[in-house]
């Protein structure tokens, strides 16, 4: 590593300790006592200082005397990050990236990116995950390359499985001769990104600032090219903290970013797919992560209406309006009748009868790793396009239109009528089914979904997360029409703990649009890293969180029941290790303790509507609100 700074990090920190401490003093305090004696900066791990009431991260920066010489390396790193237009950086503060942290809040005035104070790195990454799915661009995450990245791993894996870009910057102390006390040694690692290399798309450990600039821009480009995915850049503490030598400064530049166009399917394969679809008797379109952008939903509608084909939405993204007549997601019949199935960015291709012709368009075919087995069972398809589905849809629509004859058009019309009738029957059946246990306590998940829908249906709303299983009542009863109405499920592989932070991240993206963000929050998910509710309160992130509190890990109860039954053992003991009772968790009090408006536990279904109305007023005022609702299992 080439480092010839005029002032190195150790001497700079020693000489600038007083200045640094003054820079940490909030605006009001600095004005009140300009001649106060310098204080030592708080040591890492020391208890937090109490800021004056009303001071927030957006306060104006206090201008203080410059350090010994010029800019620090992390100032340039921030220049690079600003060129990538990050709106936020989510982080739990850590010493291995204190240089960049300080640059963000002072050199960068804590704007673009703004520092989000998180209480756990899993929350940081999952917030970035949820934010991307609402905003369509990545959030940066700052963490220790060791203990921080270790906390972050499950959320990184979730993002990887869901093909979501997250831009992770991991601090490290590479140069052993420059490491301080034992903590810096314990926070150092030869190859920080090795921990997550199996489930990130790319990583690098830059050895110079120029290297950082190039790798950061490259990482962004890679993360945003389908199949998207998280990336890691390891940022050395010395690179951050050393001042930039003049001869280095003169060479530094921020590379220009050009995001790659997504790959489109081969024209021959597109033509063959169109031929199969147009000639099919019962074609079915199955979409999971198909709508990569808001335009994706319109394209999928266009394709479905060109063919008058059934659409099954697996909901990895907001692919298709829930009440479009061709939406047959609630019915098993289309898959049973299908003779041609088009799969668009599927996690797993559905099993089909022998003889059914299968067409796959998936960008994941372009980038697969071997260790983690998220690539699923090998699908024996007839046409396999290693391409981005949304980018391929225009060509596929055109190809289909060219093949449609008058005879086929008549057949399509008849099919449309049949599917419309089936769709209406499905909606009617869902409403009739919802009436069962309507007045029950614990509250039915159908009642829960209907009560929330009644309050938000006339608002500009966005369903930002779901954790736990509510028997799909939200999708059976709500009318999803806009691309932003659902940020999409995370992926089949989602580990518990994604829902709350992803909901907060999605709500943060929606905040500037004044959109009402809604999260159906399960109890088990809440308990993983509940500090994210403090983050939501602290940053005033408006989110309506309505709990599906069934006081158990019900999926696991069923697994244990099945095991006991299979082994001819006692099935009545399946509650051991799978329930969250004795004591019941008081979620409202936990949330209140973190500064979140909260109500509950609500067990009477007649009290739910008024509680949601109260919560909605709080959310409209720009704050998060949580309602603990004790519910039926599913």
């Amino acid at each position: 590593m080439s480092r010839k700074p005029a002032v190195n990090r150790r001497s700079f920190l020693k000489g600038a300790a007083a200045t640094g401490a003054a820079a940490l003093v909030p605006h009001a305090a600095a004005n009140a006592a300009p001649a106060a004696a310098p204080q030592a900066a708080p040591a890492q791990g020391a208890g937090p200082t109490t800021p004056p009431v009303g001071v927030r991260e957006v306060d104006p920066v206090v201008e203080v005397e410059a350090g010994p010489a010029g800019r620090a390396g992390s100032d340039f790193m921030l220049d690079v990050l600003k060129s990538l237009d990050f709106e936020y950086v989510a982080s739990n503060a850590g010493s291995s990236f204190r240089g960049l942290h300080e640059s963000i809040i002072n050199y960068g005035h804590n704007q673009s990116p703004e520092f989000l104070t998180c209480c756990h790195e899993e929350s940081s990454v999952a917030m970035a995950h949820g934010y991307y799915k609402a905003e369509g661009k990545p959030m940066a995450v700052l963490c220790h390359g060791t203990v921080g990245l270790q906390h972050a791993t499950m959320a990184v894996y979730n993002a990887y499985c869901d093909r979501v870009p997250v831009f992770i910057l991991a601090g490290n102390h590479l140069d052993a001769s420059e490491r301080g006390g034992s903590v810096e040694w314990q926070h150092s690692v030869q190859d920080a990104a090795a921990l997550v290399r199996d489930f990130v798309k790319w990583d690098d450990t830059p050895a110079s600032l120029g290297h950082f600039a190039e790798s950061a821009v490259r990482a962004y480009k890679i993360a945003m090219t389908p199949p998207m995915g998280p990336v890691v850049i390891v940022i050395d503490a010395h690179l951050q903290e050393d001042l930039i030598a003049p001869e280095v400064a003169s060479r530094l530049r921020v590379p220009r970013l050009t995001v790659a166009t997504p790959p489109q399917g081969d024209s021959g394969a597109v033509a063959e797919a169109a031929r199969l679809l147009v000639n099919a008797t019962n074609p079915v379109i199955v979409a999971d992560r198909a709508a990569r952008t808001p335009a994706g939903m319109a394209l999928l509608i266009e394709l479905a209406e060109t063919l008058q084909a059934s659409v099954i939405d697996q909901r990895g993204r907001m692919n298709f309006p829930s009440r479009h007549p061709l939406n047959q997601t609630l019915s098993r019949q289309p898959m049973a009748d299908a003779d041609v199935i088009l799969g668009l960015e599927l996690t797993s291709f559905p099993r089909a009868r022998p003889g059914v012709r299968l067409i796959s368009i998936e960008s994941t075919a372009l980038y697969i790793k071997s260790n983690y087995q998220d690539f699923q069972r090998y699908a024996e398809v007839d046409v396999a396009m290693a391409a981005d589905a949304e980018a391929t849809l225009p060509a596929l629509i055109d190809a289909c239109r060219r093949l449609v004859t008058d005879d086929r058009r008549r057949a399509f019309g008849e099919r449309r009528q049949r599917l419309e009738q089936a769709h209406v029957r499905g909606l009617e059946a869902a409403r009739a089914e919802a009436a069962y246990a309507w007045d029950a306590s614990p509250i039915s998940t159908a009642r829960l979904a209907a009560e929330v829908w009644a309050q938000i249906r006339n608002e500009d709303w966005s369903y930002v997360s779901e954790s736990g299983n509510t028997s799909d009542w939200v999708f059976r009863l709500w009318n999803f029409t806009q691309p932003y109405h659902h940020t999409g499920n995370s992926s089949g592989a989602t580990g518990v703990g994604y829902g709350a932070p992803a909901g907060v991240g999605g709500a943060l993206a929606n905040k500037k649009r004044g959109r009402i963000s809604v999260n159906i929050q399960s109890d088990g998910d809440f308990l993983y890293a509940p500090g994210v509710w403090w983050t939501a309160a602290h940053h005033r992130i408006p989110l309506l969180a309505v709990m599906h509190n069934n006081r158990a890990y019900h999926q696991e109860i069923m697994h244990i029941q099945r095991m006991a039954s299979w082994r001819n053992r006692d099935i009545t003991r399946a509650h051991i290790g799978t329930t969250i009772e004795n004591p019941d968790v008081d979620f409202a009090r936990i949330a209140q303790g973190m500064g979140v408006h909260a109500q509950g536990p609500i067990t009477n279904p007649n009290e739910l509507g008024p509680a949601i109305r109260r919560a909605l007023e709080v959310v409209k005022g720009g704050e998060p609100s949580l309602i603990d609702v004790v519910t039926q299992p599913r």
Partner: protein
Amino acid sequence: MKTWMLMLLAVLVLAAAGATAQTQAQTPAQAPAQTTPAGDADAGKKLFVSLGCWTCHGYEGQGGAGPRIAPRPLPRAAFTRYVRRPSERMPNYPERVVSDEQLGHIHAYLQSRPMPRPIESIPLLQP
């Protein structure tokens, strides 16, 4: 033994085995209808919870991960038969875990659940 005699013997053995299996399969279906008294709904409610039926079917039997089974469950004999040999993802509940009599109580509990209100009387469920 001649080959034709061996074949005849095999056919007779298979036929006898098939008849036995058929008899065994029919027994559970017929027995409850003939011998089991009406169940106790209160006892059935306790069993419904302790056996974990509610985790998939809901406390009211309204359905969830499993299908709706109340207030009109399968007829008693078919109900018993299904619990003993379920299809799809449901674990089987053998007689050692829940007796026919106990299943009768559960059946009575499910039948005791109220019918849903007319959908027209629920404003939140209107289109």
